């Protein structure tokens, strides 16, 4: 370690204010956006009542029970439906204009008419299924000498809840966390840009500045490591800031093992920087090409780790488990999640070990290429 190089490098990097500003701010901004988009999903609040048209014909008029059931579902604060009683033509019209999600036509049996299959349509159907099945039960009972037919209808209207949710482990499974964990993982791997810059500034065949360092009496790897440490320090600090923001501003739960979360972030930052350095040393093409490869792999890795759509993560882990284990961003995401989720450390250590192995491989690869102190051409 050369303190001289480390200190000056730190100064240099910190003075590129635009870079520091954006690398620090971008994960925080993204976290805010994620939080905006996902807060509702988790809380399940402010459910918008589904617009449902009902064809107001005689069959519907005669079906008291259905009317009662629908009215009950369309009343109160947390109402499920917003009902429109109307003619069939009108209902048809409303459906094509997408003013309602579906309409209900009662004609001996109720028929649900929809224009597409989606979340809202499914909810309506589940509701109707439940109604029909209860009705079927009531009818069967009536044919089989019931004890107290008077009480039957009332009892049928009351629904008891037979399910209690229990936690299977240290914490509840939480889908939302995956988004934030993969965001941290992605931010770690955006450290690749710092690593890339370090390699650029030490390879004499890429920059004139590097040539100057190469001809000085400084051990090349020592100079490289000193300078890399400066990058690492800045990047890791930015990540700590992100963690603090997530924890204290957005109130994201990291579970009880917060020390390990910081430790994992430290390794993640290192892995990201090492990866960027490796790519930069490996790809002998233009700067734009390196950036493209770095962004490309990082975004694809984040995508497979479930950052945009979570199901992708499980699709990969079920269908292509190997891919899940070689994607460092997925490993990092899983490491964070297993800290939160498991009581034991076995899964965490598995992820960390593989990630650590990859980091060492990136470092060794970079070392082998950067170690060359003479170049074929400048």
């Amino acid at each position, binding site marked *: 370690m050369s303190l001289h190089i480390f200190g000056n490098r730190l100064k240099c990097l910190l003075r590129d204010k635009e870079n520091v500003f954006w690398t620090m701010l971008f994960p925080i901004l993204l976290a805010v956006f994620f939080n905006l988009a996902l807060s509702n999903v988790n809380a399940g609040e402010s459910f918008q009542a589904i617009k449902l048209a009902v064809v107001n014909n005689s069959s519907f008029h005669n079906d008291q029970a259905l009317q009662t059931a629908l009215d009950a579902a369309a009343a109160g604060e947390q109402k499920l439906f917003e009902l429109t009683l109307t003619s069939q033509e009108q209902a048809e019209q409303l459906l094509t204009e997408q003013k309602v999600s579906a309409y209900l036509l009662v004609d001996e049996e109720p028929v649900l008419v929809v224009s597409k299959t989606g979340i809202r349509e499914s909810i309506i159907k589940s509701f109707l299924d439940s109604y029909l099945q209860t009705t079927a039960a009531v009818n069967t009972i009536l044919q089989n000498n019931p004890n107290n037919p008077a009480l039957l209808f009332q009892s049928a209207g009351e629904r008891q809840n037979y399910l209690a949710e229990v936690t299977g482990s240290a914490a509840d499974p939480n889908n939302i966390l995956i988004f934030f964990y993969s965001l941290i993982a992605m931010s770690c791997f955006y450290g690749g840009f710092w690593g890339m810059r370090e390699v650029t500034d030490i390879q004499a065949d890429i920059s004139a500045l590097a040539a100057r360092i190469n001809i000085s009496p400084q051990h090349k790897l020592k100079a490289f490591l000193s300078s890399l440490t400066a990058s690492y320090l800045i990047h890791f600090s930015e990540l700590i800031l992100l963690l603090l923001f997530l924890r204290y501003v957005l109130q994201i739960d990291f579970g009880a093992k917060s020390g390990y979360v910081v430790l994992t972030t430290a390794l993640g930052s290192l892995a990201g920087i090492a990866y960027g350095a490796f790519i930069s040393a490996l790809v002998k093409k233009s700067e734009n090409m390196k950036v493209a490869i770095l962004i490309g792999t990082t975004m694809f890795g984040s995508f497979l780790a479930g950052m945009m759509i979570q199901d992708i993560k499980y699709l990969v882990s079920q269908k292509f488990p190997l891919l899940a284990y070689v994607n460092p961003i997925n490993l990092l995401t899983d490491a964070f999640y297993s800290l939160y989720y498991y009581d034991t450390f076995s*899964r965490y250590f598995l992820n960390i070990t593989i990630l650590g192995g990859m980091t060492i491989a990136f470092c060794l690869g970079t070392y082998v290429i950067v170690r060359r102190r003479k170049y074929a051409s400048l």
Partner: protein
Amino acid sequence: MQVFKLCLKILKKNIRSLLIYIVLFLGISTIMASSASTEQNTDFSFTKSKARLAIISEESTPLTAGLQQELAKIAHLVALPDEIEALQDALYFRTVSYILRIPKGFSEKIMRGQPVKLHKTVIPNSYSNAYLDLSIDQYLNSARLYVEQIEDLSQEELVQFLQKDLAVETAVEIKTNDRQAAKQTYSQYFFNYLSYSLLSILILGLSALLLVFNNQDLQKRNACAPLSTANVNRQFVLAVLVFTVLTWLVMALLCLVFALKDGFTVNILYLLLNSFIFALCAASISYLIGTLVKSPNAIPAISNVVTLGLSFISGVFVPMELLGKQVLKFASFTPTYWYVTANNRLASLTKFNYTNLQPVFTSMLIQLGFALAFFAVALVLGKNRRLQ
């Protein structure tokens, strides 16, 4: 046309990195669209969703057997050993999304009409799980009615009654034909994700061009040439447009390949038009970013914030139905929101008269407005920067 030619040369020089972006983001949108549309088809009750369910039963009675049999109709039953770690792993890797534990003495309590609870451990926010919840509650509520009303009912009889009742299902009529609906869902997802891809490619691709161009020395040199600023800008914008249209063409062609497999619909044409307008909007956002940002190091970070951020709050990754009202209101100040709104509407449209299309056209006009606004801001700011 010197400036224009130069721009094309710079773009051509970066063609490989641009191709990486195009392949990557096209890949992402394609995978997302296929996974989302298959999920759409299987995860909701119309086509009988199949949640992956593990039942851990601490007793074996006709009633528990009946319940299992019933649930097997709507879920994939997965056998798991009753060990904490195995169960945790199963939930962790989503080999199951629902674990149902039937406690000892459950059947007896049901038969006596006593309160009893089953224990579930689930992955939250899953529609197929909600569907399982409903079914289990329905089964047991119906059972409660029988127990209340009929004397000396055996478990076997009860199970038989329930089996018959629960076979009842609502008849559903889908107004468009099924195949078309499914396909349009695919196009809807694909085109929604396209907004993420288009924006990413254009910001990353055009920034390479803008960074070369906004180099102060080069700008001075251009300013000295006997060309008006307006002329230089025109040529430059023309180059940006050519790049935008080419990128859009590649994306749109791929979508057509997927869409035409299932036959052609008018919807596709409108979706293409909408995506083209969005591409213009994305180009002008990229132009603005390229004008504002001086440090090339900051570009990946900025592009990331803009593309992912807009996608998350505007209903690209998280469906609009699941977003809060406030979030949507906020999102309506972004072009992505209007793009997605138009897409969602177009996807299920079957009649293309003016009344039906009017909201779509409004959304498109708003996007064009955004495009012009971003472009104007970029021009003003660019001019100010030059004069500094």
